[in-house]
C-alpha cells in the first residue's frame, strides 16, 4: 500500500492543468482520489505525474442553464445526491450518488471522476446513460462533447484521451428518472450486483420516449435498447413493463462473479428494470 515515487502538481487554472497533461506519457488527473489513490497504493496504476484539479476555481458548481443542468468536474457525490437541481431534473443520478459508498467517500469522490474511471459496476455511468448526459472534455488540443452513449467503452475505459479533462457534464431537462439497485451487501448499499437507471417521458397517457440503462450487469454499462423499444408507445401498463424488463440483457455478455451467477444476474436485471419502471410510471 505504498505507491512508487511520483510528481504532484496542483494547478490553479484549467489552462495550467491542461498544459501539465499535454503530451504527457503517464500522467493522471486526480479529482476526489477515492479510486486513483487506492489504485496507486496497490501499485496497479503507476503515474509519473499526478495533476490535482481540485484547486481550480469554478469546477465545483451545479448550475441551471435553461434546457439543461451542468455538473462541474469537482462536484462531489454528496452534492450531486442532495442538490435540488439534480434531484429535480436528474433524480436517477442523485439517487445513484446517494447510494454510492459511505458518507466519507461521498464527501470526496466526484461524479465526473466516477464517470471518467468507468469502474465495473460503478453507480454513476448507468444514470448518465439513461439521462442522456453529454460529457465535456478539454485538452490543449481544444474542447469536444461526447454523448454518454459513446463514452463508456469498456471496463475501466472511457472515451477520454489521456490528456483530456472531463470538465463538466450537462444533462437535458425533462422526463422522469430513477435508479434502483441491489448492492453487494444487500439492500442498496455498496457497488451494485445489478442496477437499472430508467428515464421516461410520458405524454397523453403513453410513453413517448424512454432510455433504460443497466450497470453492474456487464463489464461496462449499456443502454437496453430492446427494453426501451418495448416501452415506447405503450401505455406503461404492467404488461408493457414486463415486456420491457424481459429485454434487459438482450445481446449482452452478462458477468459472473462472487456475487452472482449469469442466471441470477440476468434475472436481477429484469427485476430491477421492472421495479424502476414501476416507480416512474406509477
Amino acid at each position, binding site marked *: 500500500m*505504498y505507491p*512508487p*515515487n511520483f510528481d504532484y502538481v496542483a494547478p490553479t487554472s484549467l489552462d495550467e492543468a491542461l498544459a501539465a497533461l499535454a503530451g504527457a506519457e503517464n500522467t493522471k488527473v486526480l479529482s476526489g482520489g477515492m479510486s486513483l489513490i487506492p489504485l496507486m497504493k496497490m501499485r496497479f496504476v503507476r503515474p509519473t505525474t499526478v495533476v490535482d484539479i481540485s484547486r481550480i476555481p469554478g469546477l465545483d458548481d451545479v448550475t441551471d442553464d435553461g434546457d439543461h443542468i451542468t455538473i462541474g468536474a469537482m462536484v462531489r457525490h454528496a452534492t450531486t445526491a442532495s442538490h435540488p437541481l439534480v434531484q429535480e431534473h436528474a433524480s436517477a443520478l442523485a439517487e445513484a450518488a446517494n447510494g454510492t459508498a*459511505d458518507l466519507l467517500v461521498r464527501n470526496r469522490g466526484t461524479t465526473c471522476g466516477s464517470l471518467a474511471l468507468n469502474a465495473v459496476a460503478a453507480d454513476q455511468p448507468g444514470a448518465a446513460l439513461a439521462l442522456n448526459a453529454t460529457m465535456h472534455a478539454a485538452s490543449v488540443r481544444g474542447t469536444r462533447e461526447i454523448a454518454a452513449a459513446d463514452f463508456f467503452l469498456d471496463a475501466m475505459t472511457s472515451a477520454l484521451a489521456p490528456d483530456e479533462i472531463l470538465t463538466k457534464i450537462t444533462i437535458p431537462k425533462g422526463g422522469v428518472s430513477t435508479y434502483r439497485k441491489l448492492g453487494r451487501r444487500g*439492500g442498496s*448499499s455498496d457497488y451494485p450486483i445489478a442496477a437499472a437507471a430508467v428515464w421516461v417521458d410520458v405524454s397523453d397517457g403513453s410513453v413517448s420516449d424512454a432510455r433504460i440503462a443497466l450497470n453492474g450487469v456487464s463489464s461496462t454499462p449499456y443502454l437496453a435498447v430492446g427494453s426501451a423499444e418495448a416501452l415506447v408507445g405503450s401505455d406503461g401498463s404492467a404488461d408493457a413493463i414486463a415486456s420491457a424488463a424481459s429485454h434487459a440483457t438482450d445481446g449482452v455478455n452478462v458477468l459472473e462473479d*462472487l456475487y452472482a*451467477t449469469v442466471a*441470477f444476474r440476468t434475472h436481477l436485471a429484469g*427485476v430491477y428494470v421492472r421495479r424502476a419502471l414501476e416507480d416512474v410510471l406509477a
Partner: protein
Amino acid sequence: MTSTSVMGGIVRRKEDPSLIQGKGAYVDDVKRTGELAAVFVRSPFAAATITSIDIEAAKAAPGVHAVYTADDVRHLGPNPAQVAVGTLRPLLADGAVKHVGEAVAMVVAENRYLAQDAADLVFVDYEPGEVVVDLKDAFADKVKVHGDASNILLTWHGHGWWEGVIDLPDPSPGIQEAKERDDTVTVSLEMVNQRLLPTAIEPRAVLADWNSGYGSVELWSSSQIPHAVAGAVGVTFGIPSNKVRVVAPEVGGGFGVKLNVYPDEILVCFASKELGRPVRWTETRREAGFASTQGRGWVGTATITGTADGKILGYELEAICDMGAYSHNFTVAVPLLGLFIAGGQYNFPTSYALHCVVTNTQTTDAYRGAGRPEAAYYLERIVDHFAREIGMDPADVRKANYWKPEDFPVQTAIGLTMDSGDYEKNLDALLDRVGYEDLKAKRDAARAEGRLLGLGLSTYVEVCGFGPSALAGLGFSWGAYGLPTAFNGSGVVRVQPDGTCTVTIGTGPSGQGHETTWAQIVSDGLGIAMDNIEVHHGDSVDLPMGIGTFGSRSIAVDGTATFEATARVRKKAAIIAGHLLEAAPEDIQFADGRAHVAGSPDRAVEWGQIAESAYQPHTLPEGVEGGLESSVVFSPPNATWPFGSHMALVEVDPETGDVDLLEYWATDDCGNVINPMIVDGQLHGGIAQGIAQALYEEAIYDDMGNLLTSSMANYTLPVSTSLPLFSLDRTVTPTDVNPLGVKGVGEAGTIGSAQTIVNAVVDAVAHLGVRHIDMPLRPKRVWQAIQDAKE
C-alpha cells in the same frame, strides 16, 4: 465523590476521552529515533519449490539496508510459537512455499516506500506444484501439502480427546441403537461454516529496538499476548526474559488474530539486532489476508436421532476443519474448543469426530469464539432442523432436552464440568420479552400475503475463562516459550504514597474497556474514586507473567486476581488505619476515599494519610512492613460456562433473495455483571460478527489458492447501516468458580448469533421446500435455494 458500589453500575469508560481525542498510542504512534522500515516479499503461488532468489538488484536499490532470506535466519529455527503438530512454519520460506502470501524475503530500507520499491526488485524463481484447497480433497489426501505426510494432522474424538486423562466409553453404539428403533427419526445436514478474515481495524504492527549495549530488546507489537511474544523472542535469541520487553500499547481490535506470535515479530528483532537500528513493520490492510491468521473453515455433517415428541437420543458431528498450511499458536486446538461445547446445553449422548486437515491456504487460528461458534452453529442448526421435521416448535424441542438447574454441576459428554446454568429460565425470559406467540402469528399472517418473514432461534452455552491450568498442558505449546504452562491470572494493586492507586494486570484491552472494569473492581474494594485509579496493561516488564486477552478470560481470571489483591491491600490498610485511628482493624470501613471507624463516620483518615504512613515504615505498628501493594496470581479451578438465547426476525425478498434483518433480540447470561454498558458493548460487537458471518463475509479461495477477497471492496464486511438496533436483556446465574461470580462475555454474542440468522432465513423459505442454505446468505445463495426448491 461517590466511589463505592460502582460494581454493577454503568460507569463511563475511563479510556474514552483519550481514545476519542486521538491520544491513544498504538504501535504506529510509538516513534524511535533512526527507525528503518521492513516490507516482505510474498509468494504468488500456493504451492511451489523455490529454485532461486535473486536479491542483488534489491540490495542495490536506493535506501536499502538489508535484504534477508531463509539463508540469513535459518539458524534461529522455525517460528517458536506454534503447536508442535505437523510441519513447522519457518521464519521465512525455506526452499518451498505452502500458501499464497507466505513471506519469502524481507527488505529493510530507510522508509516503507523505498522498501516496497526494492521488494519489487527481488526476483524469485518458483516451480509451481500441485495445490489443494478443497477440504474434502485435502481430507482424502488427493494432494499432499507437506511431502509424504498425510494432510490429516489429528482427529479429535469426543470421548477420548485427552489421552490418559479422559477416557469415556464410545457413545456411538448407543446412538446406533437409537437410530435403529422404530419410534425414532434421524435427520442430517451437511453444512459449511465458512472461512473468515478476522479484520481488526488496526492491522498488525511491530517495532523492534535492539540495544547492543545491554544485549536487550524492546518490541512494540499490536498483540493480545505480549508476555508470550516476549517468551518467544527470548527463546529464539537465547536471551533471558529480563532482557526482553514487549509492549502492546493500545490495540485496535484483536479477535484472535493477535493471539499469535508471528514470524515478523521475530524478524524485526533480528533485523534490528543486525543493523543496529530500530526496525518497524506495519501490515497493510490487504496484506492482512496473507500475513495474519484466519478463522473458521469447517465442512461437516450434523445428525440427530430422536423421537417424535422431541426427545433427542443422540447427536453426531463429523467435520473436516481447515488448519491452513501451518500451525500457529492454537490452530489444532480451535476445533478442540468447539468440542468442549459441541453438546451445548443439552442432556443427550453425543459423538464427535473433528478432523484437523492442512490445505495450501493461510493458517487458521482462533477467531472470536474459536471453535465454539462453529460447534454452536452445527448443533443449533440441526436441532432446529429436527424440530421442523417432527413438526414441533423449536423452543419446545430445546426445552425438552436441556440440562435442568438441579443437574449442576454437570458432567458433559466429554468429561468436563459445567459450573452453573438455568437454560429454560433464560429461554423463557427471551420468549416472554419478544412475545413469541404474537411474533409467530405476525410471521404467519405475512406469509399468507406472500411475504417471506422468518423467525430464528438459537440458544447456546459457551466455555471460557479457561481452567483448570492442567488443561493448558494439552494442545498448547506455550511451554516452548519458556513460560509456565498455565491459565493463571495476574493482578497487582498498589496504593501510591498520595493515596491514588495503580493497578497492573496480565491481560489488556483491544477495545473491551479493561481500564474501566478493573477500576470498578478496585474502587469498590477500597473506596478509592474511579478517577484516582490507573490501570496498566500490556507491558511484559510490569509483571513476571501475563497470559493475555483471549477466550473471554480476562474478567473471570485476571479480574479475580485483582479482586483478591484488592482484598489484601484493604486488609493491610485496615491495620494501618486502625493504628492511626486507635481502633481495631476489623472495625475499619472504606468509602468515599477514606477509612472510618464503623458507626462513627467522622473518625476517619484519608487514603493519602494511610499511604503516607505505609511508605514511612517507622510510623507503622510493630510487625507491619512498609509499602501498600499486593500481587496475586490466580489459578482458576474451572472454566466458566455462560449461556443465552437469541432470536431474529428477517424478511426475504422472494425475487432477489435479499435478506432484510428486521429485529434482533438476545437474552444472555454471563453471571454477575460489573459494567452493564461494557457487557452490552461486547454483545453488540459479538452479535455483529455473527451476523457478518451469516449474511456477509467469506474468505474465498480459488482452486489455485488465491485469496479472492483480500480487499475490503469484495470482502463485504457489514457496516453500521447493515444492522438493526439490537434489543438486549440478561438473566444472572453467578458462577462459583470465582468469587466475583463472573463469566466471560467477549465471545458470547458471536457464538449465539450466526445460526440464529440462518434459522430465521430458512424459516422464511422452508414452506417453499428449502431446508438449508450455506453461509454467507448472500442474495445469490438464497435466490438459488428458492429456485432449486421449486424444481
